[in-house]
């Protein structure tokens, strides 16, 4: 096996481990950190079901963002939904036979790449054009967008400009899944694309990309508004012991 194949195989095992382990660790930390007081941003749902609905709206249609700023919302929705389609489309490289619905999704997935780039460039433009957003952007915010744009461009380049050996690539990934090494095509654009994706996977659990798991743990969004009806205690508030009463 070539050094290249081995390097990339190791890279993807490491990246996957960091991504899965890192996110799992963060989720564990979020879940095990107590929320001692009730702090939902009201008006808030008064039932668990209602909260599930609020959360669903936040992660599917970005409800709060919509109320706030239509431009960010538009670019954000374009980017995220396109990203979702692209990710789903990539399942075809990891499944044999390819699942039926992934095949059906294919026609959308192909163009989603362009939409993703459009959304990302819109968001990036704001970081230069809107003085307030320019002020709050740090280097890492720009680099994150650069990384995603570069991933998208290199991916689109392989699809529409210089095709790569998809069959061998799929063999490589199916091999990784089965813990067997298969040769990776030594195609420069592909290598760049894969390296960038691995980078994204590695930075995910130590960057602002934690917003994806984090949003589900945000107390202002996931708490039920029922403090009078149910006594809520957690963490330091669980050790309160008031005298008197019955």
């Amino acid at each position: 096996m070539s050094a290249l194949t081995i390097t990339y195989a190791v890279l993807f095992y490491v990246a996957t481990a960091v991504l899965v382990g890192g996110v799992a660790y963060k989720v564990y930390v979020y879940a095990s950190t107590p929320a001692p007081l009730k702090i939902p941003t009201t008006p808030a749902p008064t039932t668990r079901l209602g909260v599930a609905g609020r959360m669903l709206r936040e992660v599917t249609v970005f409800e709060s963002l919509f109320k706030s700023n239509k431009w960010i919302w538009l670019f954000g929705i374009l980017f995220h939904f396109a990203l979702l389609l692209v990710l789903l489309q990539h399942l075809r490289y990891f499944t044999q036979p390819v699942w039926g619905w992934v095949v059906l999704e294919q026609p959308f997935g192909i163009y989603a790449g362009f939409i993703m780039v459009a959304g990302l460039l819109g968001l990036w433009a704001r970081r230069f054009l809107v003085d307030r957003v320019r002020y709050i952007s740090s280097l890492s915010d720009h680099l994150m967008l650069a990384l995603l744009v570069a991933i998208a461009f290199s991916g689109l380049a392989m699809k529409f400009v210089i095709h790569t050996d998809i069959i061998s690539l799929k063999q490589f990934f199916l091999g990784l899944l089965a813990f067997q090494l298969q040769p990776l095509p030594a195609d420069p654009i592909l290598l760049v694309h894969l390296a960038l994706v691995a980078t994204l996977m590695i930075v995910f659990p130590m960057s602002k990309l934690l917003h994806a798991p984090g949003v589900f743990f945000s107390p202002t969004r996931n708490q039920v508004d029922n403090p009078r009806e149910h006594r809520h205690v957690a963490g330091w508030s669980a050790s309160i012991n008031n005298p008197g009463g019955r």
Partner: protein
Amino acid sequence: MANFETPALREYPIIPLIQAETMAHSKPYVAKPEHQKPLGFPGTLVDNWESVAVKKLGELVEESRALRVFLDTCVKCGSCTDKCHYYLGTSDPKNMPVARQDLLRSVYRRYYTLSGKLFPKLVGARDMTKDVLDEWYSYFHQCSQCRRCSVFCPYGIDTAEVSMAARDIMDAVGLGQKYSNEIIAKVHTIGNNLGLPQPALRNTLDGLEEDVKDETGVDVKFPLDEKGAEVLLITPSADFFAEPHIDGLIGYAKVFHQAGISWTMSSHASEAANFSMFIGSHENLHKVAIRIREAALDLGVKRIVVGECGHAWRVAYAFWNTLIGPFDFLDRNYPIPQHICEFTYDLIQRGALTLDKSANDDKIVTYHDSCNVARATRMGSMPGGQFVIPRAVIKAVVNKFHDMEPGSIHESTFCCGGGGGLLTDDLMEIRVKGAQPRMQALKHVVDDHGVNYLAAICAICKTQFAKVLPYYQYPMDMIGSVHGLVSKAIQLGTKE
């Protein structure tokens, strides 16, 4: 009037361009040792404050999921940047909610995240230096913890939580804010923010009884420490003598009187306010709140009703059950605690009050949703009842009511500019400038509908407006209590 310019009120709201450091000079007086010690904080800046601060930050993150998630998840999308009234009124970029959070997030990243430890420059991580501490002191005292930013953040990041944590850290290193800490110390020692002892309180209430007798010819009682009363009223101490708060207290008393429900106030718990929330100290939060449980048990009441106060209602509604519950000794047929507006609204629904709206015909009223009521609590059983019920009470007692524009009421309400422990003269500039968005919305209903009365249900809002309205060329007595309106409309002697 002062050495700063009152912002202009415009036809349409505009988002100002940033102007760096315009408010960097704003700093409240530092707490003296005598204000710090009773709260359990070091009297002056401790020697090893850097390490104490960093350690405290770590502890706070450990014990608060909110803080942890908020510090991690911000994507710098910018959605909150134009939502803070202090940014809109000052153009200082550090008053943009995300930038305010970043003052603390940068330190968190430096000491508690891998990326911040390895690549501080890249992710905007900073060492805990004196400059950083000074900046915290300035800008975390330019946040009224109003939660408007939290409404508009895709992850609900609440800058109020961040500024509470920052103040908690500053207190832990001995750099407290005089205004809040002095007041909390007073509650610990005397029982209320004003330092009003029992005899003075009784005296004030006697005076009110006489005033109401003169005005109406009816003996309306203002009971204090009466055992066996049905209801314990917990109200901000400003209601005892500040204008226009006092009209609200008179209104509550008249409502209790006409409803024929026995009630009492307590000299042990003569304060609804709990400034410990502003400084993020849960020990003090509990210590201030527990007086209310003690008073309720001691007086043997069945219900607790809370007077007009925004942050106090938050503490009561959202935190009391946690802090000073369980309330198994109170009557479960009523909300515990119940807001005075809920109380009055129920009586109106039942036809228990005789109200003559025309008594308020000299007023054209609008209503200011107080931040804490609007974005941190509820009234009634429906989400949003906190918007409906006070308005329903107002509409039952006045003929002429006009709401301000949609982006400035309900959950989008603009803070009065003086909440969160900023209601002190040493912060006058930020208070006036932060009131600009509210004043602008007010101007529109004044111009379009001739509004001449701004009703509110928060002691801080009332004091703040009385102070800042004149800066915007409006009369200070334009601000009033919702129950001040009730007080005017209620026809005593008709239901006895």
